[in-house]
């Protein structure tokens, strides 16, 4: 009798142990912001203020997650996308992120935009061990897993892009005299540094003029006149779209044709090349990692078709010439992939683990051949670009896909 009891108890205990250990493997793990039915994702964007042109990125992402939810969500869970306006002001960014974390209790903060805002919230998020995922700025400092293990970038860093231009110039035009027009903020200065690093020892001799301008200036024509007087062969245009268009227009008006290389941020055909004047924009160089929504060469591309259909259904009236709309889609798709890879383990640690384990992931909107790769030491998901030349009414890619990995100092 006693023996029976012991045997029965042992069997029971063993059975329970087997069951629970098996279940432990399939057990759901949640941090604040995740549950059986919902994943809460936070975001801050400049919907007002000087950078409000980028607010549409947040709107695109919101629409994308709605589309995902309509299709059943991710692993059966709906994404709750909470986005706030920070007006491109760091104190406001801090306030909004604290609200997201402490009041809305989101699982992670995704694609916050702007270097100043992200610099302001980086320490806080890392201290609280909350993922600062796929930061929407090209500043190089986000690729620093040792100091900031919870912060990961997304787009190619400005410095890597600038280094690509520098290396190309060293190869194709080693004796050129280079003038650089750059926006006097973190964006422009990052490009400037990347260029100098890329040129290495030849930087001092090849760069004949570094000309900065302020975002508040209505027109930069005066700067162009000054640059022309220095007579460079190459003009590097590190500006945001409006000023890029003004520059290309002005150089043409002055009857001056240096080799112009413009940043990836200002390559939109509809928002930059056309206003500048298609004739004026011929032979301008740049580099790209994503497809342009108005480029007819992607008309039959399955990825861009999906993008176009998405816009028609979820963002009717959206400006397809706006590169921000392509950007938002690509970033959102990357997050969706990471969340999917997390399965039922929706802890913040696992999110970072999955985000740093992406292997050859290709969102619909990236150029063929450009893939997302991350690892424990590589927090720069996209670091490949391909150079392109503006010919006729579109960009012609040329050369190979170049990798421009630059680690943070």
């Amino acid at each position: 009798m006693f023996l029976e009891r012991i045997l029965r108890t042992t069997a029971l205990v063993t059975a329970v142990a087997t069951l629970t250990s098996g279940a432990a493997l399939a057990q759901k793990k949640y941090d604040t912001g995740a549950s059986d039915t919902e994943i809460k994702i936070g975001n801050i964007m400049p919907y007002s203020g000087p950078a409000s042109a980028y607010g549409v990125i947040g709107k695109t992402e919101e629409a994308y997650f709605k589309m995902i939810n309509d299709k059943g969500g991710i692993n059966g869970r709906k994404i709750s996308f909470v986005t706030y306006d920070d007006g491109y002001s760091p104190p406001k960014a801090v306030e909004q992120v604290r609200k997201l974390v402490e009041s809305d209790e989101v699982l992670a903060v995704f694609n916050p935009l702007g270097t100043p805002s992200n610099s302001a919230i980086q320490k806080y998020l890392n201290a609280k061990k909350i993922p600062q995922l796929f930061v929407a700025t090209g500043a190089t400092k986000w690729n620093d897993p040792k100091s900031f293990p919870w912060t990961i970038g997304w787009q190619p860093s400005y410095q890597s892009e600038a280094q690509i231009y520098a290396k190309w110039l060293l190869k194709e035009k080693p004796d050129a005299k280079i003038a650089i027009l750059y926006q006097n903020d973190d964006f422009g200065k990052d490009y400037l540094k990347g260029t100098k690093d890329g040129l290495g020892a030849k930087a001092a001799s090849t760069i004949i003029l570094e000309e900065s301008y302020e975002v508040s200036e209505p027109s930069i024509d005066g700067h162009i006149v000054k640059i022309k007087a220095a007579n460079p062969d190459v003009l590097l245009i590190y500006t945001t779209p409006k000023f890029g268009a003004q520059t290309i227009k002005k150089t043409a008006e002055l009857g001056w044709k240096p080799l112009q290389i413009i940043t990836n941020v200002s390559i939109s055909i509809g928002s930059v090349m056309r206003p500048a004047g298609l004739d004026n924009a011929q032979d301008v160089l740049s580099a790209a990692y994503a497809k342009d929504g108005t480029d007819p060469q992607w008309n039959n591309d399955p990825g861009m078709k999906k993008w176009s259909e998405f816009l028609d259904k979820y963002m009717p009236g959206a400006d397809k010439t706006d590169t921000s709309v392509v950007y938002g889609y690509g970033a959102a798709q990357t997050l969706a992939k990471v969340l999917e890879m997390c399965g039922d383990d929706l802890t913040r640690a696992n999110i970072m683990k999955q985000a740093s384990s992406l292997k050859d992931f290709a969102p619909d909107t990236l150029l063929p051949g450009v893939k997302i790769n991350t690892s424990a030491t590589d927090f720069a998901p996209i670091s490949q670009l391909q150079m392109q030349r503006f010919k006729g009414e579109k960009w012609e890619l040329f050369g190979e896909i170049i990798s421009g990995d630059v680690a943070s100092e």
Partner: protein
Amino acid sequence: MELFTNQVLAGIATGAIYACMALAVVMIYQAIDHLNFAQGEMAMFSTFISWQLMQWGVPYWAAFVITLAFSFVAGIAIERILFKPLVKAPVLTNVAGFIALYAIINSSAGLIWDFTIKQYPTPFGSSPFLGSQLISTHQAGMIGVTVLLLLGLYFFFQYTRIGLAMRAAASVPESARLVGINTSWMIALGWGMATAIGAIAGMLIAPVVFLEPNMMGGVLIYGFAAAVLGGLTSPFGAVVGGFLVGVFENLAGTYIPGVGNELKLPIALALIISVLVVKPAGLFGRQIVKRV
């Protein structure tokens, strides 16, 4: 030397933008004795209206005239509806009202037309003017229109009954009322005219800086600065002020080593303040005597 002349010419071209805006600023100041922060936004909104009309197929000059009429009426409407109730309120409250108007117009424009830049046509073409590559025909046209506007305003304020009545209503309202001037409607008229002038400024500026909701932010400051430099009571001063600011800014950026480029606007403003310290009413303004 060539760089110097080039920068001066380029400065005059940019200065035309400021001069245009400065005229609108002076206009509103003549009418209400205050500076209206929302002036630039109203100009921007009018420019968008004309752009929208052209998108719908209306030819340039027709759109221009319709927009002018619309701006004039809108200016009067805004004054009557929004600011007449504030006439008895303190000055600072009115200024808060201007700021509120700024926020409303800027935000609405962003929602209706989004923030990407749009191309805006010019009736003057963009070829080099008189063979000079530094001033395009458009910029020459801009200077021409500004000078025409200036002459028009000068005649209006000096020699027409309404113009004189408006000046009286703004500077000595009680006396003006005593001689039968309807000061309230003078203010409304001033707003209407200022908005219309602002619309002209916007439509001239947009081809150069490209049309987008934030396009007037920087321009307005320069417009204020130019108007103050020239003297808030003098349209002629406003235009001269605009050109001076444009030229000085370019020269400062080119010749002051190190910081000249990064501090263009502060240096320009510092210059203006220095002028004001010496000539408190601006270069061409009338000195107002205040009695206890």
